């Protein structure tokens, strides 16, 4: 009898828990009536999803949200102007590129979210993207274990390997696991100017920096020794990084178009959409462009996989390129309250699900394992989920933008042959050491590469 009662109780408990879960998943969060807010947001490929989810928020809650949509290049200046303004910031939430967050954290321009609402927390299902939303003022480093919560990611870009599934099947080629496999496939697929075997960005600046990280990380390289513990010894001219750069150059030159050294994101997407690109690596946010019938000639033909690696049993080099939504200090109290309300709603499962359906890249793990992953238009989701566990947050210090530019130039010089790979990396190491020295860091260099 006792056992029966216990079983009944257990069953009732399970039903209640399930019902609670179902209700939680089925209903949108009620955040109450809020003052209108304005969000500074970038016109990136995932913007449409954000616009859709904001429209849903307005519909669900009756609260008004204005979007200040700005091209990528104008975002930083607009965010700076807003937080530097002596009076009230025109934006209640500002979206900041991951690399630039430190400038805002260190400058004290943002309000820690728990100082607005002590109860606010980012749900555990939301990816932390290398703790880019937290700031430890004493350590001057982004970490959630000891730092304050300053923001959260509305988008976590990583790069995925894209390939023409139909072409690989037709030619009897395997999805490459290593960069050497890429070269093997490329020999069959490269037929310029009709088709290009592998596309990766070589354009000077952030483009080549970010695309090269897939190689650098996979080959076991690093830019500095251990920034988290304050050791800024420059390691970018290590033999591992040289091997990575040599491979990057080989792939670019033998598998890309003639303008491989100036290939940007727009060019890459265009080449894939027109069917010229056969394989590529690009950010996950690029994927919806391949399936857009208005723009693409290869709808449904491009699949996504985990990035190629240095060795078959190694790890892919996954550099996280995310954004952080944060609240400026100089926002009105009502604005701060409204921003927190929106953030709570936006990070719920239901909202994130709708965000993905609308064309956004969700940031909750449970959305990636939902039924969406089985739908054809979300066929990139399993690759993303497999990769994200290897994701690394780089340049998490105030000198990050300067290091990014120094590397973006030297890598491009190596790619065009202006410098040898060893000379380019040695020069990059000298540049980066000077940047760290100016910032007062404990720095130095490893032994230079033989040029």
């Amino acid at each position, binding site marked *: 009898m006792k056992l029966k009662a216990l079983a009944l109780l257990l069953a009732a408990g399970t039903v209640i828990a399930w019902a609670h879960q179902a209700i939680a998943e089925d209903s949108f969060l009620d955040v109450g009536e809020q003052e209108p807010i304005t969000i500074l947001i970038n016109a990136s490929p995932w913007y449409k999803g954000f616009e859709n989810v904001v429209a849903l928020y307005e519909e669900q809650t009756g609260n008004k949200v204005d979007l200040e949509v700005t091209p990528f290049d104008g975002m*930083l*200046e607009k965010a*700076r102007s807003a*937080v530097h303004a002596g009076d009230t910031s025109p934006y209640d939430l500002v979206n900041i590129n991951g690399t630039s967050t430190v*400038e805002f954290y*260190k*400058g*004290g*321009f943002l309000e820690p979210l728990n100082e607005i609402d002590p109860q606010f927390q980012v749900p555990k299902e939301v990816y932390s993207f290398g703790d880019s939303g937290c700031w430890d003022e004493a350590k001057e480093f982004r970490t959630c274990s000891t730092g304050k919560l300053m923001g959260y990611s509305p988008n976590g870009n990583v790069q995925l390997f894209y390939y023409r599934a139909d072409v690989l099947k037709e030619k009897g080629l395997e999805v490459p696991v290593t960069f050497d496999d890429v070269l093997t496939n490329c020999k069959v697929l490269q037929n310029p*100017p009709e088709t290009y075997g592998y596309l990766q960005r*070589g*354009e*000077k*600046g952030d483009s080549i920096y970010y695309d090269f990280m897939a190689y650098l990380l996979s080959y076991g390289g690093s830019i500095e020794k251990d920034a988290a513990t304050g050791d800024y010894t420059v390691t970018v001219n290590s033999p591992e990084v040289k091997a990575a750069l040599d491979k990057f150059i080989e792939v670019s030159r033998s598998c890309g*178009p*003639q*303008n*491989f*050294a*100036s*290939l940007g994101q727009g*060019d890459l997407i*265009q*080449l894939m959409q*027109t069917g*010229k690109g056969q394989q590529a690596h690009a950010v996950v946010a690029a994927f919806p462009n391949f399936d857009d019938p208005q723009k693409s000639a290869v709808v449904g033909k491009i699949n996504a996989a985990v990035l190629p690696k240095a060795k078959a049993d190694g790890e892919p080099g996954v550099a996280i390129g995310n954004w952080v939504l944060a609240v400026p*200090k*100089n926002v009105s109290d009502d604005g701060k309250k409204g921003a927190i309300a929106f953030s709570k709603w936006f990070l719920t499962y239901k909202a994130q699900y709708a965000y993905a359906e609308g064309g956004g890249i969700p940031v909750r793990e449970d959305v990636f394992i939902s039924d969406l992953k089985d739908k054809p238009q979300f066929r990139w989701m399993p690759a993303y989920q497999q990769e994200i566990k290897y994701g690394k947050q780089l340049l998490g210090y105030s000198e990050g*933008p*300067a290091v990014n*530019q120094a590397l973006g*130039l030297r890598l*491009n*010089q190596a*790619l*065009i042959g*202006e410098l040898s790979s060893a000379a380019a990396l040695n020069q990059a190491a000298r540049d980066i050491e*000077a940047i760290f020295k*100016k910032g007062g860091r404990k720095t130095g260099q490893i032994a230079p590469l033989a040029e």
Partner: protein
Amino acid sequence: MTTGIKRTGSLSNFADRQFHWLALAPACIFLVLLTVYPVLELIAMATSTITFERAREIWRFTPVENFRQLLDDDIFRIALKNTVVFALVSVVIEVCFGIGLAILVSSAGKAKAILRTILIIPILMPPVAIGSMWKLMYSLDFGVLNQAITLIGLPAVNWLGSTSLALLSVVIVDVWHWTPFVFLILLAAVEAIPNDVIEAARIDGASNRSIVFRIIIPLIWPTIVVALFFRTILAFKVFDQIFLLTSGGPGTSTEVVSLHLHKVYFQQNDLGFGSMLSLAVIAATVAFIWVAYRAGRFVRARDA
């Protein structure tokens, strides 16, 4: 009573004597506020290191460090060289084309108005539209230029991705964009030349070539100098089209000072060194114009 009249009279005299100062005062105040103050602020910033802490600016006076950084900046030296080459080549071509077009259009009769309208279209276009349009035209795989080139059996040209062609490609866009500006200034000058002068030369048997080189160009020379002056300043500040077309690459082949300054100032947020670079750009522009002016005077003195 007499004293009162005298005093009123002297006050009135004083006001009359000083009226020009009173009249000039608003303009002087605006000049100081809008020109002198920003330059002084720029100098103050150029000699400082500016950081932000607790939402406040912190200034440290570091003129030597900033100047040393300028001397050590090898990218700046390359950018300066590229800027001078860019300015020299593009301005010379624009002025030559501008003179040619001004003379041709001024003698175009009834078609003058329509030609003038068509020719000034490029300067009416926003720089962002120009950059985007030319980027599409220069596209290796899809650009109209390469489509035309490959149609006649020649290989596609890597306009923006080749270190030897990228700067030239940017010069072509600049020439397309700014020649109409030079043309417009010079057209007004050509049209201001009295017909009698040209007719007299023709009666004396002067050929077209002689009329252009011995009459028209010498007569519009002061206007050409003004056009050169304006264009040189603008060419030194070139930013939009290079930013949109090449971002300074490949390598350092199209890196110019404004682009370098933008990276330091806005992307790296290094306000002190960025301001030092701004001062260096101003100094380089003034030096370039001074050298050009002296060279022009020397040539004219030799020819006189």
